[in-house]
């Protein structure tokens, strides 16, 4: 990477820079003309110079000049104008120049801005591109938050500077020089004084600012380290809690902030000192003009006109000069930032660009054996994992790799996945070094899963298909506005040195997964999910998610059938009292009061949860049925009971999870509210307080909470209120609720709730488990299993997959590795989060799955449990960096002591 920022900018933008310089030069012409014009107007038409006689006229817009060889050349004769006409004409010229100058400025600024932004885009892309090409071991040394800060924040000022890199000094230098020349013309000696002071400024100020730059660099480094630490805190939050080190972290952060504060404060002090001196120097010049110029005038050696002109001309000098000095400051500042970033991104052994070149065409299978030749592996610190080992893996072989604690089996697996580069020796595919193969071959024909799982923030589906997204496979045809936008995007990407891959193209390589397109991919997905025992989990997630009615029409359309089937099933198993269905006109005791009142699912915020009690229409319905007072009193009762039960508990106590009425943090609020409202008559209570209390009653379920608040009379009234609510429902609220109707699919509710269309009885032992089992069976029978699985695949896994359990994450990673049907599958203790029995089951399944459809890939599996090695064709055992046993399970078990000791 280019070390000098100026050279970097010039090499990428010299054409544009030259163009903009030319434009700036051209723009100087009207700029100078507008300088001179006020004088012409004042002296000419206003003061009457040249119009001494009445009716006198002057030539206007006469363009002629004398050329050395040709003599007098007249381009335009001009007009004769009288005094008033001249005033108008000159003023109009002035206006014209104002507009022209403005337009020039506008053009130059936008051009510069665009130039800067394009360069910024280029630099940022370049940096991320390098991150993608860093050698694997480099990532052990860098913190991700620091890299992110560099790409995002630290190069940001570069964008603003790039447009100004060459134009600004030219422009400002030109302006300052012009002003200087103006002064010189008026009076040489006063000009020299000004020049002398300017020289002092130009020499002194940048010198003083050098310290600012040093401080600035420190500021940058400390701020970057801070963001690295903050990132570390977020990543390691569990560790912090587990070890009670939060205060240690606080101390560390506080110390860092203290340092940053000190640096920043120093920076301010110095900055304003420099500013003070700079201003002082700028002001000293007029002082000298007044003093010396005045003195000279008094002695008649300078006329007043000249002095005034000098002082007037001087007005235009400090501005450009100051900006020029500022520019220099920014230049040095961004140069430092740039150098810093470049240093961080200058890494040896970058992956060559051709290795990662995009390959749209299918890649031929890797039919050569993989072989390690004198392979040595070590970690960052130089500790040896593997010491000059050679072996070969033939296509189609299944190999179990076992090792002792120091065996280095995991490093071997990483090396074959190119995640650990050999210290010496190499791994070859046929005759080619594995590291020389393009990623389009290794990334498609070799697949790898370990217990260290990376999941992207997106749905389960995104993550599952992530391993198939190698290249933009389809050409999307755009029309109209979209086509224009696409054209623009391509052009801009090229201009900024970015690739123009279309993100909206279909990147999924269906053929690699053994499918022909999106329509039959699902069958393959299901196979791999079954193999790793993930389909149950995903089915569960699907049941607990709402569906997109457009995508899952079958579920929505067949909901009645599903509900009926469930009833039938429950009756057949004599479990019909397990679920209390929602029936219009009936109170459902197992559902809460709010649900019984609404008898529907809230769709927008108007009728959801707490907002319900405050909704004016809903409140009016309650009032009409006389429920308002009853529910308010019930709310008071609930508040009373809850506070009695829970006020002794610390706010983070797990019991609060069982409390449906309020959160732990609301206890004090309700305690105060209860004290305030106790004994007050209902009519004197404010609307807001009423709503707060009434809302508590909505979460009440008699069989669950057993406070004895629900009477037959109340139930009747609630059903009555429900009917009234729907009878008069205003049009504005129609979209805010989906009523419970036996034939209607409720979009806002989960699949499970839709199928149940009722509530599981609270006092039934193992109710939820029974229901789940029944629904699973039913979905399979009705052929809706895949549909719900598909809903589950839309589940968002959260940042780093944190919404999944560790076991689910590892299974998902495994499924992803299986889906792309590679020729070599490398599994590096991939299922550590599972118990041994489950691991063994998945292993059996996976060995079967990879062979499905007559395929014969090689499998290399680093086993946590050596006894599973019997499932493989060949077993390799590593100990102390050496391959100590290699053969079939039977031979090793008979003849090899080390292996026997591992198995036992």
């Amino acid at each position: 990477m280019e070390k000098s920022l100026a050279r970097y900018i010039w090499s990428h933008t010299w054409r544009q820079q030259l163009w903009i310089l030319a434009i700036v030069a051209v723009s100087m012409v009207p700029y100078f003309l507008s300088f001179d014009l006020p004088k012409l107007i004042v002296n000419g038409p206003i003061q009457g110079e040249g119009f001494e006689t009445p009716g006198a006229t002057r030539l206007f817009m006469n363009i002629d000049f004398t050329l050395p060889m040709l003599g007098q050349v007249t381009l335009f004769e001009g007009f004769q104008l009288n005094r008033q006409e001249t005033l108008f004409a000159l003023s109009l010229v002035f206006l014209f120049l104002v507009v022209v100058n403005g337009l020039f400025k506008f053009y130059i600024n936008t051009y510069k801005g665009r130039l800067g932004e394009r360069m910024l885009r280029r630099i940022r892309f370049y940096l991320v591109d390098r991150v993608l090409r860093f050698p694997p071991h480099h990532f052990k040394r860098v913190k991700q938050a620091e890299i992110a800060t560099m790409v995002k924040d630290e190069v940001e000022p570069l964008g603003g500077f790039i447009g100004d890199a060459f134009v600004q000094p030219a422009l400002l230098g030109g302006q300052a020089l012009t002003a200087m020349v103006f002064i010189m013309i008026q009076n040489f000696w006063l000009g020299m004084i000004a020049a002398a002071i300017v020289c002092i400024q130009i020499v002194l100020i940048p010198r003083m600012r050098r310290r600012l730059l040093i401080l600035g660099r420190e500021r940058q480094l400390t701020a970057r380290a801070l963001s690295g630490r903050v990132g570390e805190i977020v990543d390691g939050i569990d560790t912090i809690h587990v070890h009670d080190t939060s205060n240690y972290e606080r101390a560390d952060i506080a110390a860092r902030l203290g340092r940053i504060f000190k640096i920043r404060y120093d920076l301010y002090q110095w900055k304003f000192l420099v500013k003070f001196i700079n201003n002082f120097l700028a002001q000293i010049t007029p002082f000298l003009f007044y003093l010396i110029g005045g003195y000279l005038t008094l002695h008649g050696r300078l006329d007043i006109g000249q002095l005034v002109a000098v002082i007037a001309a001087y007005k235009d000098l400090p501005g450009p000069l100051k900006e020029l000095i500022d520019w220099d400051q920014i230049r040095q500042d961004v140069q430092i930032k740039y150098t810093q970033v470049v240093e961080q991104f200058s890494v040896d052994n970058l992956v060559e660009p051709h290795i990662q070149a995009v390959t749209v065409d299918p890649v031929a299978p890797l039919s050569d054996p993989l072989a390690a030749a004198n392979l040595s592996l070590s970690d960052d610190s130089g500790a040896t994992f593997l010491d000059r080992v050679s072996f070969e893996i033939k296509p189609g072989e299944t190999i179990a790799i076992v090792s002792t604690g120091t065996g280095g089996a995991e490093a071997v697996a990483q090396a074959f996945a190119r995640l650990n580069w050999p210290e010496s020796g190499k791994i070859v595919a046929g005759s080619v070094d594995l590291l020389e193969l393009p990623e389009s071959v290794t990334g498609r024909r070799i697949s790898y899963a370990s217990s260290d799982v990376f999941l992207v923030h997106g749905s389960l589906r995104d993550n599952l298909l992530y391993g198939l997204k190698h290249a933009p496979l389809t050409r999307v045809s755009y029309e109209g506005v979209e086509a224009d936008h696409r054209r623009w995007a391509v052009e801009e990407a090229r201009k900024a040195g970015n690739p123009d891959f279309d993100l909206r193209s279909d990147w999924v390589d269906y053929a690699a997964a053994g499918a022909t397109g999106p329509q039959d991919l699902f069958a393959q997905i299901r196979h791999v999910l079954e193999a790793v025992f993930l389909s149950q989990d995903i089915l569960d997630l699907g049941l607990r998610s709402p569906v997109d009615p457009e995508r899952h029409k079958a579920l929505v359309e067949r909901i009645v059938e599903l509900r009926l089937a469930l009833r039938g099933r429950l009756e057949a198993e004599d479990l019909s009292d397990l679920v209390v269905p929602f029936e219009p006109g009936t109170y459902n005791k197992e559902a809460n009061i709010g649900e019984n009142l609404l008898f529907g699912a809230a769709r927008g915020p108007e009728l959801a949860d707490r907002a319900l009690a405050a909704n004016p229409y809903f409140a009016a319905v309650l009032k009409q049925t006389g429920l308002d007072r009853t529910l308010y009193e019930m709310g008071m009762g609930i508040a009373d009971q809850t506070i009695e039960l829970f006020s002794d508990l610390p706010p983070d106590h797990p019991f609060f999870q069982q409390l449906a009425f309020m959160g732990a943090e609301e206890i004090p609020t309700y305690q105060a509210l209860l004290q305030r409202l106790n004994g007050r008559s209902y009519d004197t209570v404010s609307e807001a307080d009423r709503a707060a209390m009434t809302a508590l009653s909505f979460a009440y379920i008699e069989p669950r909470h057993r406070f004895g608040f629900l009477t037959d009379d109340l139930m009747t009234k609630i059903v009555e209120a429900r009917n009234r609510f729907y009878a008069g429902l205003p049009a504005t609220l129609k979209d805010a609720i989906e009523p419970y109707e036996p034939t209607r699919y409720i979009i806002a509710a989960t699949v499970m709730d839709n199928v149940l269309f009722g509530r599981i009885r609270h006092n039934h032992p193992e109710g939820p488990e029974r229901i789940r089992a029944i629904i699973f069976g039913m979905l399979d029978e009705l052929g809706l299993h895949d549909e719900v699985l598909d809903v589950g695949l839309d589940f968002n896994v959260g940042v780093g997959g944190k919404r999944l359990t560790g076991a689910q994450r590892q299974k998902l990673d495994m499924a992803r590795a299986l889906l792309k049907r590679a020729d070599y599958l490398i599994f590096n203790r991939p299922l550590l989060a599972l118990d041994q029995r489950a691991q063994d089951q998945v292993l059996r399944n996976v060995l079967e799955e990879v062979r499905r459809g007559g395929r014969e890939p090689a499998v290399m599996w680093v086993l946590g449990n050596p006894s599973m090695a019997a499932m493989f064709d060949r077993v390799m055992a590593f100990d102390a960096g050496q391959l100590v046993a290699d053969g079939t399970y039977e031979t090793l078990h008979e003849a090899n002591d080390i292996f026997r000791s591992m198995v036992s």
Partner: protein
Amino acid sequence: MLLKDEVGMLRRVPLFAGVDPSKLKLLAFTSDRVSYTAGQTLFNQGDEGDAAYVILSGTADILVDSAAGPIKVAEAEPNSIVGEIAILCDVSRTATVRAAGQLETLRIRKEDFLRLLKEFPEMTVEILRVLADRLSHTTADLIDARSRRN
């Protein structure tokens, strides 16, 4: 049966007799009311114990496996607690409990119970007193039995 009645029932269980009623209420609130019909099992012998059951109404048979199949060894009646050892220590169920007719129980989950003990030491002391009392009785019985055998 309401929460406050359940508290009354809990107070009649010797294990909880000395515990402050407000804590018993919290215990009842965090526990589930579970009903069984005749023949349904609450838990099986050998299962891992995760909850104790207070019988609120109805009766349950306590059965122990034998070579000749399960034998009924006792009957649990209202106000009694079954499976309480399981929520105090990690042992598997020593007997099967089955509803003899319509049975109403309060299921006290082990983790909730232990959390309450952790939160309110005075409750722990009360439970401890009952257990120590039982132990001394058992010890006395043992001595008695041994001396009789000698």
